[in-house]
């Protein structure tokens, strides 16, 4: 039968302020297998550790749970102390109720409940733990990195720079992964090629890195420090040393669909006929001309009130512009939105004259009335409310547009009346239809 001791640490106010340590201790005392449960101000202090060692000896404990900080901090401390009084150190576990609990939460009741759960889990773990003896095994000083995208490449270069051998395995014929498909990267908007390609060259030049492309992992065995991995090199029937990458073999290959150029499914196949027709009308006149993207996106938005994702994919295919760039453009400009908008669009002008004359009070009032923030749409898809840059009607400030109608010298009272007007007009519409 397990005889487990649980010790709950306050860590001064760090834990005690957000977790009711005494309540956790009391709870832990009821758990199966637990014979003692105590809480103390600092378990890592000398008196704190003495509470634990005394209890191990007096209560004949077979396992211990210390509920305190992260095991990275004090697991070694407590295991060493426990070992001194004869407890197998691997029967001691820590429940992290500080970083994972008290520091992360603001509700004392819920945090205390979570601390109880964490302690219960650790008690169950200790009940199942076996006493262990440490052994020494030799470690192979070589690292395998699977996947030669930008992360794999960088990891391989770092490990190689630290002086170890690296085996880098990539499933595709070429390294580079997704980064090779991107246009620009956040936040500096550097071209991704400029970041990626020098590193691609570096892995080829490093004498510490052995690269297998067009190869897959078949089996992984062994354990940390001594893995055994079986790598299958796919047949490429090409003498890599002589290949210049001209691509001719791909064109002449009889079984070329088996070569790994990904088959791209065209979005055109799944667009519904109406959308395709609308988009074709917008795109056909634009095809082959330069500087048309902004206008095309504006037309698409005019047609749908927002930019549907599939429409953007279709634009990308037809204009032969990378989807990533189109997405970037759509996100950059305020006039574009990727979410469907409400039936009525209310815009509050944010020009200087409007600001001076109380536009922010109008924004507050709309937020209160509609229960949404600017840029959002009400759940019933009735209203979208947006703040817009100066509409150039400064003489009439503050200005609000409702469904593109300008309303000047707006006041909170007038605005709320206008909203009511729209709501009641909408509400009476179905009745009229029914009557008609």
């Amino acid at each position, binding site marked *: 039968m397990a005889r487990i001791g649980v010790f709950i640490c306050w860590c001064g106010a760090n834990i005690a302020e957000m977790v009711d340590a005494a309540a956790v201790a009391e709870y832990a005392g009821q758990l199966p297998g637990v014979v003692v449960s105590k809480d103390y101000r600092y378990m890592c202090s000398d008196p704190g550790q003495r509470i634990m060692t005394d209890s191990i000896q007096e209560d004949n404990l077979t396992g211990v749970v210390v509920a305190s900080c992260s095991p990275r901090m004090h697991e070694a401390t407590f295991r060493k102390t426990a070992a001194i009084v004869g407890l197998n150190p691997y029967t001691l576990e820590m429940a992290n109720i500080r970083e994972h609990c008290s520091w992360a939460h603001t509700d004392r009741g819920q945090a205390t409940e979570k601390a109880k759960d964490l302690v219960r889990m650790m008690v169950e773990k200790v009940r199942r733990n076996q006493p262990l003896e440490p052994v020494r095994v030799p470690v192979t000083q070589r690292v395998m990195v699977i996947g030669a995208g930008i992360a794999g490449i960088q990891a391989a270069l770092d490990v190689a720079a630290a002086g170890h051998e690296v085996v880098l395995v990539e499933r595709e014929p070429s390294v580079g992964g997704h980064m090779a498909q991107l246009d620009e990267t956040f936040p500096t908007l550097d071209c991704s090629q400029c970041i990626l390609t020098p590193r691609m060259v570096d892995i080829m030049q490093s004498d510490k890195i052995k690269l297998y492309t067009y190869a897959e992992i078949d089996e992984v065995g062994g354990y940390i420090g001594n893995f055994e991995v079986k790598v299958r090199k796919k047949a490429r029937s090409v003498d890599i040393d002589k290949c210049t990458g001209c691509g001719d073999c791909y064109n002449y290959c009889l079984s070329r669909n088996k070569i790994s150029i990904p088959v791209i499914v065209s979005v055109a196949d799944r667009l519904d006929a109406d959308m395709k027709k609308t988009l074709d009308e917008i795109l056909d006149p634009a095809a082959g001309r330069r500087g048309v993207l902004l206008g095309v996106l504006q037309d698409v938005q005019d047609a749908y009130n927002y930019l549907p994702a599939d429409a953007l994919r279709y634009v990308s295919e037809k204009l032969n512009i990378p989807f990533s760039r189109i997405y970037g453009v759509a996100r950059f400009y305020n006039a574009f939105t990727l979410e469907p908008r409400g039936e009525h669009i209310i815009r509050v002008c944010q020009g200087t004259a409007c600001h001076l004359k109380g536009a922010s009070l109008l924004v507050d009032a709309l937020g209160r009335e509609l229960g949404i923030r600017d840029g959002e749409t009400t759940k019933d898809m009735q209203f979208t409310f947006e703040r817009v840059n100066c509409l150039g009607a400064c*003489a009439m400030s503050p200005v609000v547009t409702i469904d593109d109608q300008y309303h000047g010298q707006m006041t909170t009272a007038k605005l709320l009346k206008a909203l009511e007007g729209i709501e009641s007009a909408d509400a009476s519409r179905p009745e009229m239809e029914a009557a008609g």
Partner: protein
Amino acid sequence: MTTLTRLDTVEAFGELREFLRLRQDPRQTVISVCGFTGCKVNGSDAVAEALKEEVRKQGRDDVPVKVTGCHGFCEKGPLVVILPQGIFYQKVGLKDVEAIVEKTVIGGEIIPSLLYTDPRTKEQYKLESEVPFYAKQERVVCRHSGKIDAARIEDYIAVGGYSSMVKVLTEMAPEEVIDEMKRSGLRGRGGAGFPTGKKWEFCRMAEGDEKFIVCNGDEGDPGAFMDGSIMDGHPHAVLEGMLIGAYAIGATHGYLYVRTEYPLAIRSLTRALEQAHDYGLLGENILGTGFSFDLELTRGAGAFVCGEETALMASIEGNIGSPRQRPPFPAVSGLWGKPTNINNVETWANVPVIIDRGAEWFASIGTEGSKGTKVFSLVGKVNNTGLVEVPMGMTLREIVYDIGGGIQKGRKLKAVQTGGPSGGCIPESLMDLRVDFDELVKAGGMMGSGGLIVMDERTCMVDVARYFLEFLTDESCGKCNPCREGVQQMHNILERICAGEGKDDDIDILLELAEYVKDSSLCALGGTAPNPVLSTIKHFRDEYEAHIRDHKCPGGVCKALIQYGINADACKGCERCAKECPQDAITGEKKQPHTLDREKCIKCGVCFETCPFDAVYTE
């Protein structure tokens, strides 16, 4: 719409112009209705329709009703002017239409109730040219405003439009045109004031098999709408200016980049492009002179930074609008790597009149370093808000008081903000400053595109700085670090000050950050972003200190630092505020002074807005 005949020769154009000119009878009665945003908001469309209907009904369909570009006096819209006398009616409603046609158009009588009365002197004015708002203005760019129908190219041709282009194509070498522009002293109206002739020369000299010109109609400065009104009311002047520029520079293709928030300007320019094409004034072999030039319109998509020239070009190319390092300047490597010349709307619109009346005439207007006129949008807490065009060098005091009619509700002037988010606030003590490119910069402001925003004592200068930095934080493209992070940090500090949580060293930190951001940003958006902060600290440091030390907002704006209250002496117990209050925080008997419960008050400001007696105060 009539189908037009394409004009194949210069002579054919001359004949058309003569025909149109002769058809115009200077004694003819014309009803001119302003059709720009301000008047539209107040219902000018319906008034114009009703007038058309009414002249028909009263048997005078020979009297044309013209919907024209902005007349300027937006405050008093809808505006109706009866030509040729120039009788000026303001705040015209549908109920006045019948009387206007019957009494004024047919009977030749004036309707006193529609005339403008100066609220200060109580004097009434009959003619547009006498109204003080117009009397001190000098209209060069907007010289046709209110006189021609912007939707009709024939109106423009009849008053001499496109004749400057013909003059240039037939009588002047490209170098002569550039020389004329240089001698006129025209400086770019887009903000920085770079000499236009010189810019054209750079682009003309640049090597390239293809060259572009661009009209910057992005007008992103909040509180400015001059460019919008020029594009709406004078679209052909912009096109003609660009045609002249294209000839001088050697460009074959041009772009009009117009912000999408300006549907009226987009419609007007699109129509103008069609008409110019139909007449053969745009396209291949214009008027048989061998000169070809085409223009297309690109709508912006709501990004302030796209007003910056390199970002604007990226945007036309269909990219994210982020600026790039200059040099190379657009004149060397612009759109698609080709030499490109970018000018502002108002700059282009100045070109035809300079060619028409000559560089010397133009240079005789204005100051030593800034020639010609400048169109401003005069807005904010001033009585006569609207569009004004004045010679360079007029004092701010003249603009705000003589033209603008002083401050609303008789309050005190605190400052005038110029230059949008890149500009600064000029305090009341500097009102005698002569407005031109250089004087404004000396005072910590900037010409910018020409917004003049008047601020009274109920404006909080810290809040103004916070407002502009919020705008710039939103609009920063995020490419360079100083602007993306630095402006954000400055904004955070200002937010804190406005929330009453300012710290003693905040002003110093703001000043220090301002220097870094100014010096190290990639483009002028970041380079000028600290200006609103610097100029308000320079002139209104006491307001910053009041927020930080005393937790008071002297302007009565910053929510966290004010309380609303009702002045019992001024309150008449009309109950309006109590009805509107969303919190039911205001109580009182009818006709008795009301009281406001500060526990319930959420400071939404509704009572302040509604009170007709100014009895609601903030402290």
